[in-house]
C-alpha cells in the first residue's frame, strides 16, 4: 500500500496537496491539465521533491526522509533514462550496483535482463546507436533489475508511435507483474486500456483515485471541462 498522508508542497507560487492511497499491484493513470502538478506528484513519491508537510508511507513505513535510491520506487522519465556516454550493458548493470565498476556478477545479470527484452545483440552499444524503442527496452531491463515494487512512468514512451507505446507497456507489465504502477498520460484511451483507476490532478490538488470507467463515463464538472 502506497499512501500520501496530507501531503502539501509549495514552490514558487505553485502548490499541490494530496491525500490518497494506492493498493499494491494497482495501476493508476494520472490525468490533468498541463502545469497542474502531475509530474510534481511523481517527483514527491520518487523523492526528488520534499513535501512541506505530510508523510509518504509504503506498507506502513514512512519513506518521506529517504533519498530517491533508498525508496521502493523506480521512475522512468520522459527522456534521459540512460546515460548517453555509457554502453547499454553498463547502463543496465547500474540498476544492481551503482558503483564505478559493476562486478561481473552484476554484468551477468544485466546480460540476462537484456536478453529478456530482446537486446542481446546490442549490449556493447551506446544508447545513441539504438532506436527509440530499443532505448526504452534497455531502460525496462534496468527496471527489471532494480526490482522496486512501485513504478512511476512520466510519459517515458511519449516519443514512440501508438503501437510501440502499447508494446512497451505490455512488456513492462510482463516483466514486473505485481508492480504498483502510476503513469502520467494525456490519452483517455491509453488510461482505459492500461489503468484500473485514475487520479485527477488540477488546481493544485491531486484527487483520490476513481475507477477508470466511472471517471470517464460520469465525469465531474472539472473533469468534463478538461476532457472537452
Amino acid at each position: 500500500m502506497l499512501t500520501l498522508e496530507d501531503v502539501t508542497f509549495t514552490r514558487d507560487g505553485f502548490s499541490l496537496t494530496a491525500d490518497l492511497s494506492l493498493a499494491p499491484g494497482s495501476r493508476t493513470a494520472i490525468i490533468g491539465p498541463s502545469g497542474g502538478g502531475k509530474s510534481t506528484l511523481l517527483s514527491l513519491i520518487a523523492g526528488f521533491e520534499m513535501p512541506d508537510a505530510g508523510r509518504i508511507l509504503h506498507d506502513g513505513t514512512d519513506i518521506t526522509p529517504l533519498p530517491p535510491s533508498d525508496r521502493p520506487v523506480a521512475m522512468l522519465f520522459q527522456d534521459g533514462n540512460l546515460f548517453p556516454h555509457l554502453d547499454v550493458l553498463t547502463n543496465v548493470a547500474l540498476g544492481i550496483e551503482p558503483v564505478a565498476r559493476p562486478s561481473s556478477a552484476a554484468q551477468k545479470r544485466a546480460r540476462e535482463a537484456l536478453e529478456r527484452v530482446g537486446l542481446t545483440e546490442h549490449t556493447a552499444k551506446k544508447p545513441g546507436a539504438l532506436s527509440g524503442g530499443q532505448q526504452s527496452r534497455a531502460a525496462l531491463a534496468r527496471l527489471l533489475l532494480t526490482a522496486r515494487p512501485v513504478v512511476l512512468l512520466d510519459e517515458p514512451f511519449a516519443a514512440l508511435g501508438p503501437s510501440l507505446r502499447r508494446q512497451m507497456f505490455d512488456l513492462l507489465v510482463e516483466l514486473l507483474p505485481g508492480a504498483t504502477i502510476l503513469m502520467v498520460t494525456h490519452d483517455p484511451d491509453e488510461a482505459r486500456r492500461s489503468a484500473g483507476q485514475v487520479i485527477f490532478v488540477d488546481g493544485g490538488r491531486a484527487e483520490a483515485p476513481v475507477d477508470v470507467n466511472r471517471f470517464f463515463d460520469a465525469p465531474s464538472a472539472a473533469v468534463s471541462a478538461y476532457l472537452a
Partner: protein
Amino acid sequence: MAERAQPLTGTVAAGLLAAAAIPALILVTGGAVLTKATGASGLGPGDWAAIRFTLLQAALSALFSVALAVPVARALARRRFAGRSLLVALLGAPFLLPTIVAIFGLLAIFGRGGVLNAGLVALGFEPVSIYGLWGVVLAHVFFNLPLATRLFLQGWLDVPSERLRLAASLGMGPGAIFRHIELPMLARTAPGALLVIFVISTTSFAVALTLGGGPRATTVELAIYQAVSFEFDLGRAALLSAIQLGLTGAAALFALSFVGHAGFGAGLDRPTRRWDGKGAMTRTADSVAICLAALFLILPLAAVLIAGLPALISLPDVVWWSAIRSLGVAAASTLLVVALTLAMARAAVRRRSLARPIEGAALLAIAASPLVLGTGLFILVFPFADPTRLALPVTALVNAIVTVPFALRAVLPAWQKIEADHGRLAASLGLKGWARLRLVELPRLARPLGFSAGVAAALSMGDLGVIALFADSDTATLPLQVYRLMGAYRMEDAAGAALLLMLVSFALFWLFDRGGRVDADA
C-alpha cells in the same frame, strides 16, 4: 533535489575551502601590502605619471582595438572565403600566445631593425620607434583586436536571420541596414568590449616591461616591479600595489557582467546568409579589412618562426633548463586549477545555494593584479626566506589563482547541465561519490575540463609577471629567459627560445584540449 536542512558534507566543505582560498590569498597579500604601504611617504610626481600613463595607454588600447575590430568582424560576418575558419581560429591564438613571444614578433616587424622601418628608410622616410606609448598600445591592440573581433562577430551572428531577411525583402540599402540592425548591436557590444580591454591593458605587465619604461612610459605595475627589483623600496611598492588594486578592482568587477559568453570562437565559423554588401566598394573594404587583420596577426608569428627555426637546434643549455622549469610550473599550476575548479564546481552543484557565492569568490581573482599578489607574497616571505627559492611555487600558485575564474566559467555551467539532465537518474539509482564522479560526471565534463586545463597550462607556461619579481638566474622560467636574452641582445638565441616557448605553449593547450575530446561521443 530538494534543499532541506543538509549537513556539511565533505564535498561542500572541500568546495568552500577551495573557494575561500582565493579571497583569503587576496586579503592576506593585500593586508601585507597595506601594512607596508603606511610607511611610505605619499605619491611622488613619478607615481602620478605612472597612474596617468596606465590609464592613457589602457584607454587608447581599448579604443583602437574596438574601433579596428568593427570592420574586421563585419567582413568576417558577411563574407565566405577559403581559410575563413582558419582565420577565425587564429583569432583565438593571441589569448594563449606568451606575451614575450608576441613582443619578439612585433619587434621583428615594427622594431628599429624591423621590416616596417627597413621599408620606410628605403623609401626615404624617418624610421619610427616602437618603444614608448605607441609601442605599448600596438602590442595591446595585437592581443585585444582579436578578442574584440570575436565579441563583435558573436554579436553579428546573434542577429536573428529573420531580421536580415526582412531587411532584404524591404530592400534596405547598406546605410539603412547599418542604422537599424548593425548599430544597435554595436552599441550593445562595444561598451563591454571597451571595458574588458581597458582592464586587461591596465594589468598587462610584460608589455610595459619590454616596450615601456622611462619617465614617460611607465605603468603602475612596472613601477611596482622597479621599486622591488631595483630600488628595493618595499614601502613604495606596497603603496603602488594598493593603487593598482583600486585601479583595476572596480573596473574589473564592473566589466565581468559583460564578458558572459566571450567563448573561444566555438560556432563562430558559420557566416550568416546576407543579401547586402554586394557593391564593389563594400567588397573591397571587406577584403582590405580581412587582409590587414590577417597580416597583422600572422606576420609577427611568422617572424618568430623564421628567426627562431635556425636557432632552435643550437639553443644554449640555460634555455632548455628554463623550459623544464616552466613545464614544472605549468604542470603544478594546471593541477591546482583543475583541483580547485572541480572542488568548487562540485560544491556549487551539490548545494545550489552556494553557486553564486562560490562564483563570486572565483571572480575576485580577476580583479586582483597578479603582480600585486606577487608583491604581497614577496613582502610576506621576505623576513623568513630568500624569495628566489620560492620563485617557482609562487609563480605556479599565482598563475593558478588567476586562471580559476576562466576554468570555473567553462566547467560549472557544464556540470549544472549534467545535473539537470542526469541528476535524477543518478539519484534514483543511488550513484554517489566516486562512482557518480567517475561514471557520470567526469566523462561528460571531459571537454570543458580539458579546455580549462589547456588554457591553464598555456597561460602558466607563457606567464612573465610574478616570476620577474622573484627569480634570479638559477630560477628563470622560459619567458623570463627570452626576455633576458633579448635584453642582452642575443637575438638569435632569443628567437630560438621564443619559438620554443610558442610551440610548447600551443602544444600544451592542444594536448589537454585534445585529451578532453577523445571518446567524448554522444
